[in-house]
């Protein structure tokens, strides 16, 4: 059957670097742009729509368009943290469908590792942020904010550290086959729960890596996709959402996926049981667990049980995830993992994932991004993708 689709992903590229000592951020943006355009068989002069987020320096999209010499009809610089690039996929589909552009380029790049920015440090969103006065005195860090969500999830649902660890174990099983992954060693549940506590209840191995690099995507109209050929991947559905502290009615155990997931599934006219492969944002193990619940892959509170027993391992479990090793083991360029989630989903749908992790007859995939801090102040973006013949 051929499902309707308004735009295709024609090019995808992940920067091979994990530590970019002698490259600038604009240079990395241009390198991933070139990689994705080559992958699509297109050139920079073909690009008429450009999408980037807060990692783009200077005036963002304006600075990057100038640096790369792009001549654009359409620009979108939506910033929702690490989920931005998955939101951009949806926005690019809309822009193409509306005739505002026909070749849309999305880029991400960053070098937090070369710049010595730790994943456990405080993020500086500027003193103008209205929450700063009431939060910054308490040293909230990315780790302890996610840790509080994990603690609360454990309290409400009985989730255990061993269940969270199973997510890292699955990622490591995939990363062993990825020669570019930062952490290639297969770990056990015991390894994870015995690694040092960073912020209770999260251990060192519950956290993602810090890496440099980036990635890019090229989306095209259905007409162009027919010219380019069968490696083009369909975008079947999309949804975005935000979630915040709701004026003090804090709820740490739900994510924006509660909203973005159903929107994307309705858009695609699919249900979670249809999905063959998922790329789930994995800044921490708890990010994956709560997202899987909120997307509807299991009942709320059952995430711990769902991820246990190798259920996320390709060829073993019922829902293979993050077959490149994800942010937990492979890379997390610019502390923003949304882009690489889409790229691995594209590889799976093209049958170009590593043979040891390739999902057999992979037809329908989902990629999900989380931005900001889970449950507190976050962006959420979900896309559903299909193989060219889906």
């Amino acid at each position, binding site marked *: 059957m051929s499902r309707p689709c308004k735009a295709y992903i024609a090019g995808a590229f992940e920067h091979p670097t994990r530590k970019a000592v002698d490259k600038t951020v604009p240079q990395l943006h241009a390198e991933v742009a070139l990689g994705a355009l080559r992958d699509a068989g297109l050139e920079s002069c073909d690009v008429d729509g450009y999408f980037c987020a807060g990692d783009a320096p200077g005036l963002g999209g304006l600075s990057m368009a100038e640096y790369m010499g792009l001549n654009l009809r359409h620009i979108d610089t939506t910033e929702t943290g690490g989920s931005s690039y998955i939101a951009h996929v949806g926005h690019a589909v809309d822009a193409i469908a509306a005739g505002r552009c026909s070749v849309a380029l999305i880029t991400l790049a960053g070098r937090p590792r070369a710049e010595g920015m730790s994943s456990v440090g405080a993020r500086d969103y500027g003193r103008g942020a209205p929450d700063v006065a009431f939060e910054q*005195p308490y040293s909230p*860090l990315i780790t302890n904010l996610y840790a*509080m969500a994990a603690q609360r999830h454990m309290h409400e649902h009985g989730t255990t550290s061993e269940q969270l660890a199973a997510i890292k174990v699955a990622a490591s099983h995939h990363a062993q086959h990825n020669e570019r992954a930062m952490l290639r060693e297969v770990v056990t549940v015991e390894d994870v729960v015995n690694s040092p506590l960073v912020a209770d209840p999260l251990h060192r191995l519950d956290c993602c890596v810090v890496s440099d690099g980036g990635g890019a995507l090229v989306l095209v109209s259905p007409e162009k996709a027919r010219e380019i050929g069968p490696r083009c991947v369909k975008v079947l559905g999309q949804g975005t959402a935000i979630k915040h502290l709701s004026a003090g009615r*804090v709820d740490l155990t739900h994510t924006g996926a509660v909203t973005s997931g159903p929107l994307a599934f309705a858009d695609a006219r699919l249900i979670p049981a249809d999905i063959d492969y998922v790329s789930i944002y994995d800044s921490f193990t708890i990010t994956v667990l709560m997202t899987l619940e909120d997307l509807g892959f299991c009942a709320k509170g059952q995430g711990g049980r769902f991820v246990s027993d190798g259920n996320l391992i390709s060829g073993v479990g019922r829902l293979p995830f993050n077959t490149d090793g994800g942010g937990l083991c492979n890379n997390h360029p610019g502390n923003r993992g949304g882009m690489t989630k889409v790229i691995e989903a594209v590889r799976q749908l093209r049958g170009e994932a590593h043979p040891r992790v390739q999902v057999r007859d992979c037809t329908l995939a989902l990629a999900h991004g989380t931005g900001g801090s889970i449950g507190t102040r976050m962006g959420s973006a979900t896309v559903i993708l299909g193989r060219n013949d889906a």
Partner: protein
Amino acid sequence: MTSQPQHIYPDPLVNSETAPYWQACQAGTLQLKRCNACGQTHFYPRAVCPFCLSGDTVWFTASGLGRVYAFSVMRRAEPPYAIAYVTLDEGVTLMTHIVDCAFDGIAIGQRVALAFRQSAGGQAVPVFRPQARLSAEALVGSLS
């Protein structure tokens, strides 16, 4: 006890919207904001109500009592500290620290009461401590 390293609280940002909150802390009270137009209490305090955007918001003094909603001990910090969200009896949840107790004794749902710590520049910062009387054992534990 004085030889123990103390957590350093960064000075909070004070501006026209936040100054009354911090002045009240200096005087030993926790102030919240309620909207005269819709009646809702919100946190963090704003000049404009986040429920209805009315500018008719007024300060009132909170009970200073609540329960731990979530917490995490930042083990990598020196010294470690316990960040938390506390749900006040007034119904709003705020970010804070749990102090004056053994970290291992902190629990979600625990009753806590308002206390203060001095920031690096001498501003009183609201924190919370277990509401029950501290046992000698808990005091010793807080030093380890």
